[in-house]
C-alpha cells in the first residue's frame, strides 16, 4: 500500500465513505496497529471519536462481588514493574493512566480532562511537545488530591535507571514540565509524530508522589506500596497474596459518577487455561477469565453450556514461522547460525516458496485456532491481494512439489528430496503449547507429502523465551532451521517492532543474542528505508514506509505468517465488560457491570 492509497483511504474516512472501524481494520491487516491508525487520522484532521461505553446501572455500588480468574497469577502490583501482562492487569485495577487506547485507535481519557489535539492547542505545531490537561477533583485512595506533581513525579520515577522500571523506554527521552496544578507539558528531544506514549496505556499509570517519593531509584524495591497500591482507580486495595489472589473493594470517591457497580472484587490466579474457561463458561463460578489460549473446539463446546460467552478482541499478535537465513549446524568463530554462513536449504528461494505453499493455514485456522486466530492477510507480499476478501493463502502440495522438482530437488529412494547431496530435511522448533504442537503436526505431514522431512522439537516456554546466553535452545539463539512463535507488539508504535529485521540488530554472540533480528535476514534496502522512517514526521508517509518494510520481509518468504491471534477472554452471562486489543483487559473495569 503506497502513501497515495493511504491518503485516499483517509480522505474516504473524512468524507464518511469509509468507516473509521474499517479503516483501522485495514491498517491492522497491513501490519500496523490501531493506535497508529488513530494517530494517522488525527494528524490528517479526523478527530478522535468520543468513545462511550454502555453502562446501565444508575448508581455506584450494589453489584456484589466480581470474580476474575487469571491462569497466570498476579505477582506484583506496581504497574512500572509489571513484567508480564498479568501484572499489568493486576496493577490496572488500582492505577490509571492519563488515557488508554480503544479498539479503534481512539484515545480515551482516564485521568486526562481531554485528549490533546491541534484544536485545543494540546499539540505543538513542530511536533516537539504535547500538553495534557488533567482532570480536577480526582482523589487518591488515601484521600489526597491528584495533581500535576504526581504526573511529573511518575516521569522522574520511571526514567531513573536505578528504579529499573519496565516502562523506562517511554520516559527516558522526554522531559515533563508542570505548567500549573492541572496541566503538564511533555517535551520531546526531537519532533515526534507518535506523541501518546508516556502516561498512556499499559506503561502509563500515574503513581502518587506522596506515597512513592521516598522510594525512587535504588530504593524502589522497598516501597510498601509495591504490594499495597494507592491509586485513583475504581477499586481500592484490600489484600494481596503474590502468585495467588488480589482483593479490592469499591472506591466510594471514584471520579466518574455512578461507577463502579461492584462492591468487591476478587482476582484469583493460577491453574491452566482450559479449567479457567470451565470455571466461567461451564460452572459459572467466575465472572471473567483472562487469555483463553485454548483450542476453539473446546471453547465452543464449553460455551454450549450457556453459562457464559467467549469474547474475541482483535490485536496485533501474529503467529508465524521463521526460516533461518544462516546455517545453524555449522560453527563459525564460536557461534552457530553465524551471519557468515548461508542456510544450506533455505538459501534456495524455491524451497522457501514451497514451504509457504505447504502451510495449510485454512485448516490451522479452522481446526486449531478457530475464532481465536484467523489466517491472516498481514505480512502479505502482494498488497493488492488482501484488499480482495476472497484471497486466501494458498495451500497446494502439488504446486510445492512442482516447484521443488523444477528447482532440481529430486526424490530419493526414501521419498525425501535431495539436491547436490543435501537432503531436504529440517528441524522445526517451537515452545510447548498444545495448539503449537498441533500446528507442527499439520505442517510436518504436508511437508512429508512434498518429500520434505521435518523433525519436530519443542522447548519448554520458560527456556525458549529466555535470554540465557548460555542456552542454545532459546529463540534468540535460533540454533535450528525453523521456529514458530507469536510476535507481540508491546508498544503500539511499530518503530521498535520493525527493527527486528535491520542488519545492525542481528542476534549474535557479540551482542549476547540480545539483537532483535533473530531470523538473521538482511537487506540493504530495508535498512535504508528503516532509517528514513525513523526521521519521518508525516504520520501517513511513515505508515506507508512501515507497510513497505513489512512487505519486503515477507516477500522474501523467510517469514511465514500463520494466523493473526486475537485476545480471547471468557465472560459470564449477564456481565458486560469492555475490551480493547490495544490496552489491558481491565482498562475499563470501572464500566463493567452485571445485569440480573
Amino acid at each position, binding site marked *: 500500500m503506497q502513501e497515495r492509497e493511504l491518503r485516499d483511504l483517509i480522505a474516504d474516512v473524512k468524507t464518511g465513505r469509509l468507516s473509521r472501524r474499517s479503516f483501522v481494520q485495514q491498517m491492522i491487516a497491513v501490519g500496523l496497529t490501531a493506535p497508529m491508525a488513530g494517530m494517522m487520522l488525527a494528524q490528517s484532521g479526523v478527530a478522535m471519536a468520543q468513545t462511550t461505553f454502555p453502562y446501565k446501572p444508575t448508581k455506584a455500588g450494589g453489584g456484589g462481588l466480581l470474580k476474575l480468574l487469571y491462569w497466570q497469577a498476579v505477582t506484583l502490583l506496581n504497574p512500572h514493574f509489571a513484567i508480564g501482562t498479568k501484572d499489568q492487569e493486576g496493577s490496572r485495577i488500582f492505577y490509571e493512566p492519563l488515557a488508554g487506547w480503544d479498539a479503534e485507535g481512539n484515545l480515551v481519557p482516564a485521568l486526562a480532562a481531554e485528549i490533546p489535539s491541534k484544536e485545543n492547542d494540546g499539540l505543538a505545531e513542530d511536533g516537539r511537545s504535547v500538553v495534557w490537561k488533567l482532570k480536577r477533583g480526582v482523589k487518591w485512595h488515601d484521600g489526597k488530591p491528584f495533581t500535576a506533581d504526581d504526573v511529573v513525579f511518575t516521569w522522574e520515577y520511571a526514567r531513573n535507571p536505578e528504579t529499573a522500571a519496565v516502562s523506562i523506554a517511554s520516559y527516558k527521552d522526554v522531559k515533563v514540565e508542570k505548567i500549573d496544578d492541572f496541566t503538564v507539558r511533555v517535551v520531546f528531544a526531537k519532533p515526534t509524530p507518535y506523541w501518546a506514549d508516556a502516561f498512556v496505556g499499559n506503561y502509563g499509570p500515574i503513581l502518587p508522589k506522596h506515597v512513592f517519593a521516598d522510594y525512587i531509584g535504588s530504593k524502589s524495591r522497598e516501597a510498601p506500596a509495591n504490594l499495597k497500591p494507592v491509586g485513583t482507580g475504581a477499586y481500592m486495595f484490600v489484600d494481596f497474596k503474590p502468585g495467588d489472589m488480589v482483593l479490592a473493594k469499591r472506591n466510594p470517591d471514584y471520579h466518574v459518577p455512578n461507577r463502579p457497580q461492584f462492591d468487591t472484587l476478587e482476582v484469583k490466579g493460577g491453574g491452566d487455561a482450559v479449567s479457567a474457561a470451565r470455571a466461567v463458561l461451564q460452572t459459572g463460578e467466575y465472572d471473567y477469565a483472562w487469555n483463553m489460549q485454548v483450542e476453539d473446539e473446546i471453547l465452543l463446546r464449553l460455551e454450549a453450556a450457556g453459562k457464559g460467552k467467549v469474547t474475541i478482541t482483535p490485536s496485533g499478535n501474529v503467529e508465524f514461522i521463521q526460516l533461518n537465513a544462516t546455517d545453524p549446524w555449522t560453527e563459525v568463530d564460536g557461534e552457530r547460525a553465524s551471519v557468515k554462513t548461508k542456510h544450506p536449504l533455505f538459501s534456495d528461494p524455491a524451497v522457501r516458496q514451497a514451504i509457504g505453499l505447504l502451510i495449510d493455514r485454512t485448516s490451522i485456522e479452522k481446526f486449531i485456532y478457530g475464532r481465536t486466530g484467523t489466517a491472516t492477510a498481514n505480512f502479505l507480499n502482494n498488497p493488492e491481494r488482501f484488499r480482495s476478501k476472497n484471497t486466501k493463502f494458498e495451500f497446494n502440495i502439488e504446486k510445492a512439489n512442482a516447484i521443488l522438482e523444477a528447482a532440481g530437488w529430486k526424490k530419493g529412494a526414501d521419498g525425501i528430496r535431495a539436491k547436490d547431496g543435501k537432503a531436504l530435511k529440517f528441524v522445526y522448533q517451537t515452545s510447548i503449547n498444545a495448539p503449537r504442537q498441533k500446528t507442527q503436526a499439520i505442517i510436518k505431514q504436508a511437508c512429508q507429502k512434498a518429500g520434505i522431512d521435518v523433525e*519436530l522439537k519443542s522447548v519448554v516456554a520458560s527456556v525458549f523465551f529466555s535470554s540465557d546466553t548460555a542456552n542454545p535452545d532459546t529463540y534468540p539463539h535460533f540454533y535450528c532451521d525453523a521456529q514458530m512463535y507469536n510476535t507481540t507488539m508491546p508498544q503500539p508504535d511499530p518503530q521498535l517492532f520493525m527493527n527486528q529485521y535491520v542488519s545492525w540488530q542481528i542476534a549474535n554472540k557479540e551482542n549476547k543474542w540480545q539483537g532483535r533480528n533473530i531470523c538473521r535476514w538482511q537487506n540493504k534496502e530495508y535498512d535504508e528505508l528503516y532509517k528514513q522512517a525513523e526521521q519521518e514526521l508525516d504520520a501517513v508517509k511513515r505508515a506507508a514506509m512501515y507497510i513497505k518494510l513489512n512487505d519486503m520481509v515477507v516477500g522474501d518468504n523467510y517469514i511465514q505468517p500463520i494466523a493473526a491471534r486475537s485476545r480471547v477472554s471468557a465472560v459470564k452471562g449477564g456481565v458486560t465488560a469492555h475490551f480493547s486489543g490495544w490496552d489491558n483487559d481491565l482498562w475499563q473495569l470501572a464500566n463493567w457491570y452485571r445485569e440480573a
Partner: protein
Amino acid sequence: MAVASIGILTLLTAAVLFGPLIWRIPINEIDFTARLAHPSWDHPFGTDDLGQDLLARMLYGGRISLAVGFAAMAVAIIVGVLIGAIAGISRGSVDAALMWITDLFLALPQLPLLLLVIYLFRDFLKNWVGAEGGVFILIVLVIGAFRWMPVARLVRAQFLSLREKEFVEAARALGATTPRLVIRHILPNSLGPVIVAGTIDVAAAIIAESTLSFLGLGFPPDIPTWGRLLFDAKDYLDIAPHWALFAGAAIFLTVLTINFIGDGLRDALDPRRVM
C-alpha cells in the same frame, strides 16, 4: 493368576511389536473429516482432535511406553537395592555417606534439574547414539535417577531389621560369609517392598515419560506414547472420553499384570510360602 498375567503381558508386548505391521494406518495421518470420532470399524479406538487413528497411535506409542516403563523401573530397582543393601549391611560411615546421597537426590528440585540435563546432554547423546537411542537412554536414566531413593531406604530399613533376626544370626553362627548372608538370607526376605516398588515404578515411569516429553526432554512431541495420549486427552475428557480410556486402560493392564507376576515370583521364591 501369575500365569494368566504373563499371557496378557506377552499379548500386550506382541501387540505393540507386531501390531503396527497389521494395523497399517499411519500414526500421523491427519483426517479433519473424522475428528474426535468415537470408536468404529474404521477406527476401533476412535480418533483424536486432528482425526489421527488412536489404535495406530496406541500400538506405536506402546513400544516406547513399555520399553521406558520396564527399563526405568529396572534402573530404579537395581540402583535402589544396591545402595540400600550396601548401606544396610555396612553401617557406619558408608551408611552415612550413602544416605547422604539419598537425601540429596530426594531434595533435588526435579524440574530445574531436568532442564539442566536436557541442556547439557541432549545434543551430546543425539550425536553419539542417534536421536531415538539417545533420547531413550536419557529418559530411562533420568526417570531411574529420580525413583531409586525410596527403594534404597526401604531395602536399608529391611536390612537393619532382618540382619538381627534369629535365622540370620543362625546362618552367621554357622559361618556364612557376608555376601552369602546377604544374597541367600537377607535379600530374599526384603524383596516384598521391592516388588511393590517395582510395579509402582513401571506405572510412574510411563506417566513420567509423558511429563518429560512435555518438557521437551522426551521424544519429539509427535510421538504418541501412552502417557502423552493421556495428557493430550485430558482436556477432552467430557467431549471424547474414548481418547483417554484406551491409554489409561493400557497402563492399568500393564501395571496389573506386572503386579501379579511379581506376587507370583515372590511366592515361588519364598521357601516359607503361605499355606
